[in-house]
Each structure stands twice: as structure tokens, then as C-alpha cells.
């Protein structure tokens, strides 16, 4: 276990470093480089030259990278001249809101998808399985933003059950108005359930074909004991891995859902920044989301290793 932990953690550190190299590279991809990102689109070449001189941007690239990285590690993600606020304080305000939205939705998605996928596998190739599989496949093929729009069209515009816009303002304003959270949460949950239930269905089917099921059956164990005592427990293990693997997709879905419902999280922050060419903010969001994803998959892998000894044993291979 120690060996697995050490190996997996050093892997995560390497990936984090690579994420930082990519973001640094993106910064330099901008016409005019980081100076353009900070001074904005109206800066003259003279301004840029002066800025480069002042901030050591004429020094070799590795030296610049080192300076930038130490800055990022101490929480200096740059400054948004559009919003007149430091990127880290903007992120600090918005991040909890995104975490709330994604967290609640994913929790709901797991609570729904596990029983649904289980039901599908047990009733394989019967009417119930076909209906659920079809619905899941259609949802899976629908862009998250259109799911959101359809929900707004039906539940907000026509039936007027839930408001179409998320509450603005602080974190406490968000939780004190749960009505307004229903549609964004429902959007992400629906899209996520569609993907998860497919995975859980086939995972349960795999388990049903295992030797221990045949063994239990031949020993005369009842169907209920086999399904709920053995299969469900073993099939639930991969859910943790699934969560880790699908983190990037969940984040993407959350970001675009925020845009649809004008939900004041980091997704909306990034999109607003993109339209005003506020590059430090976009890259700040990229680096925070990237780091969160890497740490999230690390935690998922460790949890899975704790639950399943076979994963630990095969640590050297993957």
C-alpha cells in the first residue's frame, strides 16, 4: 500500500507540473505573450517592451517559468484589469459555488444511477431495460446546454414551477434559495446519470458472469442474497473509479450549465473572461480546475485501492 501511495502520488505531482507547463505555454501562445495578457489588447509595442523589461520577461524561458511557478504556488495567479481584482480572490469567491453545484449533482447522479444500472442489468433484455437504455442513450447524446434549455422551456417558461435563473450574490444567498438551484442541478444530474447508468449496467453484468455467482447459486443461496449481498457490493467498487475518470466531463458539463442558468460559478467567470479577452482569469480557472481534477482522480484511485486489494497489487503495471 505504501509503495502504491508513493507511486501514485509522485505520478500526480508530475501531472500537476505538466499542467502548469501547459498553462505557461498557453500564456506564451498569446500574440504578444504574457505582457499582452496583462496589459490588455490596447497596449502599444512600446508599452509591451517596457513591461517585458520591468518584469524580467526578456530572461530565458526556463527562468521565467520558474518565477511564474513560484508565484502561482504562493497564490499569485495574476490580476484582472477588467474586473479590477486579483484572480485568486475572484476564484475564492466563485469556487465554492461551483463545488456546491457539481457536488450536489454528482451525489444525486450516483444515488440514482446505481439502482437504475443495477435494475437494468438484472432485467437485461426485457422491456424495462430497453426503455431505460433508450432514454439514457438519448440523454447521453444530448448536449448538456440543450437539456438545460429544454428544462427552462418546460419547467420555467410554460409551467412556471422553478425559476430559470440562479440567485446572484454570495454563497449564502445561493443556499438560502434552493428553489433556484433545482434546474441547474437537475441538468447536470440528468446528463451524468445517462453516462453512469450505462457503465454500472455493464459493470453489474460483468459481475453476474463471475465464478463466485455461479458458486453461490450452486450452494443454494437465494437470488436476493446473491444480488444484494455479493453482486451489488462488488459492482459498487468501480463507481469510485468511474467518478475519478469522469471528473473532466463532469466539470465540463458544470461549466456550460453555469452559462445556461447564469449561475455565478467559475464557469461563468471563465466565459465572461473569454468575451472580454481577460486572459489571466481564463488561465487562472484552467489551472485551478486542472489541479482539482488531478487531485480528485488521485483521491479516487487511493479510495479504490483501499476498497480493492487487487488494485494495489497491480500498481506497478498501470
Amino acid at each position, binding site marked *: 500500500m505504501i509503495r502504491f501511495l508513493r507511486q501514485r502520488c509522485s*505520478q500526480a505531482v*508530475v*501531472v*500537476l507540473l*505538466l*499542467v502548469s*507547463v*501547459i498553462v505557461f505555454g*498557453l500564456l506564451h*501562445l*498569446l*500574440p504578444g505573450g504574457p505582457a499582452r495578457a496583462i496589459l490588455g489588447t490596447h497596449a502599444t509595442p512600446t508599452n509591451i517592451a517596457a513591461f517585458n523589461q520591468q518584469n524580467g520577461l526578456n530572461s530565458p524561458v526556463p527562468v521565467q517559468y520558474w518565477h511564474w511557478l513560484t508565484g502561482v504556488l504562493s497564490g499569485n495567479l495574476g490580476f484582472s484589469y477588467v474586473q479590477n481584482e486579483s484572480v485568486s480572490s475572484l476564484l475564492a469567491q466563485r469556487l465554492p459555488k461551483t463545488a456546491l453545484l457539481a457536488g450536489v449533482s454528482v451525489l444525486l447522479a450516483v444515488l440514482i444511477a446505481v439502482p437504475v444500472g443495477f435494475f437494468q442489468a438484472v432485467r437485461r433484455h426485457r422491456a424495462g431495460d430497453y426503455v431505460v437504455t433508450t432514454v439514457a*442513450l*438519448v440523454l*447521453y*447524446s*444530448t*448536449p*448538456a*446546454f*440543450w437539456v438545460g*434549455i*429544454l428544462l*427552462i*422551456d418546460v419547467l420555467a*417558461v410554460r409551467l412556471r414551477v422553478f425559476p430559470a435563473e440562479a440567485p446572484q450574490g454570495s454563497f449564502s444567498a445561493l443556499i438560502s434559495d434552493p428553489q433556484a438551484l433545482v434546474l441547474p442541478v437537475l441538468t447536470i444530474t440528468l446528463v451524468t446519470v445517462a453516462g453512469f447508468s450505462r*457503465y454500472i449496467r*455493464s459493470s453489474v453484468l460483468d459481475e453476474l*458472469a463471475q465464478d463466485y455467482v455461479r458458486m453461490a447459486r450452486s450452494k443454494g443461496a437465494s437470488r436476493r442474497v446473491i444480488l444484494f449481498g455479493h453482486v451489488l457490493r462488488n459492482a459498487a467498487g468501480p463507481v469510485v473509479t468511474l467518478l475519478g*475518470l*469522469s471528473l*473532466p466531463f463532469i*466539470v*465540463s458539463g458544470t*461549466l*456550460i450549465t453555469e*452559462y445556461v442558468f447564469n449561475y455565478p460559478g467559475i464557469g461563468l467567470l*471563465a*466565459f465572461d473572461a*473569454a*468575451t472580454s*479577452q481577460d*486572459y489571466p482569469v*481564463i*488561465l487562472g*480557472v*484552467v489551472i485551478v*480546475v*486542472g*489541479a482539482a*481534477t*488531478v487531485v480528485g*482522480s488521485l483521491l479516487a484511485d487511493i479510495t479504490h485501492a483501499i476498497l480493492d486489494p487487487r488494485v494495489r497489487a497491480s500498481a506497478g503495471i498501470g
Partner: protein
Amino acid sequence: MSPENVASVLGPEQSTAEAEAEATAGGVWLRAFVRNRLAVTGLVVIVALLLLSFVGPLFYHTDQVHTRLGMETLAPGAGRPLGTDDVGYDELGRLMVGGQTMLEVAFGAAAVAVVLGVLWGATAGYFGGLLDALMMRIVDALLAIPAILLLLFLATVFRPSVLMLIIVVGVTAWLVPARLIRAEALSLRSREYVLAAKTMGVRSPTIIFRHIITNSLGTILVNATLQVADAILLVAALSFLGLGVAPPATNWGAMLSDGLNYTYSGFWWLTYPPGIAIVLTVLAFNVVGDGLRDAFGLDTRRG
């Protein structure tokens, strides 16, 4: 392939000997695919959408360049089966033109993603060791950054055209194929024929192309199909955010985004046709991909 699968693929009436003869003829997977009614329906839908987008405009002439003020947001009626949009373009004609850019970008991006991913994954898996570790960590790092954010950034830096979209979407989408092919290459590289080729002194690039990639063609084909579906969703999302192609060019995502402003006015013909077109196309490609995977007897779950 489990015995049960073989039975369902071949049907009960065929004996094992017959089945083997057929397998050597190479027709098994084609037969299995054709028997999968859902997958065949998907293929028919794809062909129909291609015909609608690329052949349709030859029969249904509309002006998709000049705006027609005074003709905007008209409900469907005679001569305009799907009505007109907010600057007077005929909506059905627009659906065809939008479909062209959508499908061009989707096929192009999927091709870029698959070629890049296959080369990357096959190289990493074949050589293994430190090179493999480094190459796969790069994939992990890129996978940690949500594609939509990367696209957002790239789309603000480079003005999007069809070619630009193909490159930008392709460059963010090659990670999943890279992982799949790498896994395939890892298992293929210890096969006897690869070892034999190595012993005979065949050069590594030749082995990668002739043995590793050729033997992964099933996985590659399945993934390519699913990549088209993913590319459509990505392009739609990007256009929805207003970063797709510039007017008068359009695609289904951009049309959906334009029509959104009129949801409250009840102009359903501006959002439902492009929305349904997107879902139908993505669904068709997913179903065909699943059908191919079952026909090849592969078990490659999407990450």
C-alpha cells in the same frame, strides 16, 4: 468473446465448423453488424443527414447570404417548411448549410484526433518504460483541463474558421484514442509475431505501423465513430458560447444559440430543428459505434 456472445452473433442454426469457415472469410463482423438493427438504423440516419446537408441544397434553393428584413421570424408555412430565422434566412435551408459545416468539422476533427491519438498511443505502448510513462502523463495533464476551457481559450486567440475548428477540436480530442491504443499496444507488443519481427531486425516504426496499428484497427474504427459524436457535441457547445463560425456561415450549435433569444416568444422552429438535428446525429454515431464494438467483440468502455 464469451460462448454466449458467439452464439448470439452467429445464431443457433450454424454449426461451429461453418462458423469457423465464415470467420476465415472475414465476414463475421459484417454479418453481426448488419443483424444489429439499431446500428443499421443509425447508419441510415447518418447517410440521410449527409444527403440532407450536402445534396439537399441542390434541390431546395435558398439564399443563405443576404438577410431579408421584413421576412424575419415567420412561422412555418407554404414555401418555408420550417419558417425563417431572426434575419430572414429560410430555416430549412439554414439547417442544410449548418449541417455542412457541422459534419465537415466533426469528421475532420475526429480524423485529426484519431491519427494523433493512434500515433501517440501506439508509440508509447510499443516502447514502454520511461518514454511511455512520460507520454501518458502528458495525456493525463491535458485530460485534467476540461476541453471546453481549452477550446474557449484557443477560440479567443485564433479566429475560428472551419479549418481552425477542425484543428482546435481535434487537438483537444485525441486523448481518449491515445489511451485506448496505448493499452492495445501494451498487450500486442509481447505477441510472438511482434517478437519474431523484432528478432529479425525489423525497424520499430515498421512494426508499429504493420503490426501494432493494423491489429488495433477494430478499436480504432469504433473510437473514430464515437469521436465524431463527441466532436459534434464540442462544436455545438463552442458555437453555443458564441465562439463558432462567423456569420453568414453557421452550424447547428450557432442556430440553437441564435434561437434561444426567442424561447420566451414561443418561436419553437428556431430551436427544435437544430437541437433535434444535433441529438439525432450524435445518437446515430453512438449507436453505430456501439454496434461496431459488439460486432468486433471488443470491450472498450469509454473513459
